[in-house]
């Protein structure tokens, strides 16, 4: 079965500094991986996805993630945080057998002025 582990439940950074949200995955085959963001009282929005093409994936709002098979990681980064980035971020793997998304526990990102 596929699974993801988000290594930090809460990350706090200052505005203008880099963001790193860590995710490790477990999969018995080549996975599809996603990052979704959820702003307070809003729905889940897709940030980016990896589907076995380029290992460095660029998403919306300046976010990107790098697929590293050797480390089974799919960390999310952004060079410079903005106040509007404050939200909950979910690392997600697609389960091919069960046709469902498997979510990590989420990382709450706080941006300090």
């Amino acid at each position, binding site marked *: 079965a596929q699974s993801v582990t988000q290594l930090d439940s809460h990350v706090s950074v200052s505005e203008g500094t880099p963001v790193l949200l860590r995710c490790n995955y477990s999969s018995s085959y080549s*996975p*599809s991986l*996603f990052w*979704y963001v959820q702003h307070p009282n*809003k*729905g*889940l*929005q*897709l940030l980016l*996805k990896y*589907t076995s093409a380029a290992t460095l994936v660029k998403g919306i709002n300046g976010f990107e993630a790098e697929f590293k098979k050797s480390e089974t990681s799919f960390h999310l980064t952004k060079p410079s945080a903005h106040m509007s980035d404050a939200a909950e971020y*979910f690392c997600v793997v*697609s*389960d*091919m057998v*069960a*046709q*469902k*998304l*498997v*979510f*990590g*526990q*989420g990382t709450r990102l706080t941006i300090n002025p």
Partner: protein
Amino acid sequence: GAGVSQSPSNKVTEKGKDVELRCDPISGHTALYWYRQSLGQGLEFLIYFQGNSAPDKSGLPSDRFSAERTGGSVSTLTIQRTQQEDSAVYLCASSLVGGTVADTQYFGPGTRLTVL
């Protein structure tokens, strides 16, 4: 274009009552999914519809939960004899094709269910 819509946005009910939650997927999307987001369990898969195929009900937590999808479009999630542990945000998602790991799922805003 219009995204996934869900109704109601909030539902408060008494323990033991039945509730129905509605999802309108993006037009033309053949796959539809229900998930539940709760404090203790995070985001969990409930059920998956793909075209006219039999749904994958493997995530439904009990036989009090059921879902149907009429005409390959609108879906209704029904919870019978609600319990307090059913309190959660119920999320619906749709995707264009389904059946592939790369297919992107688009989520609705959710229905927040509170069981008193």
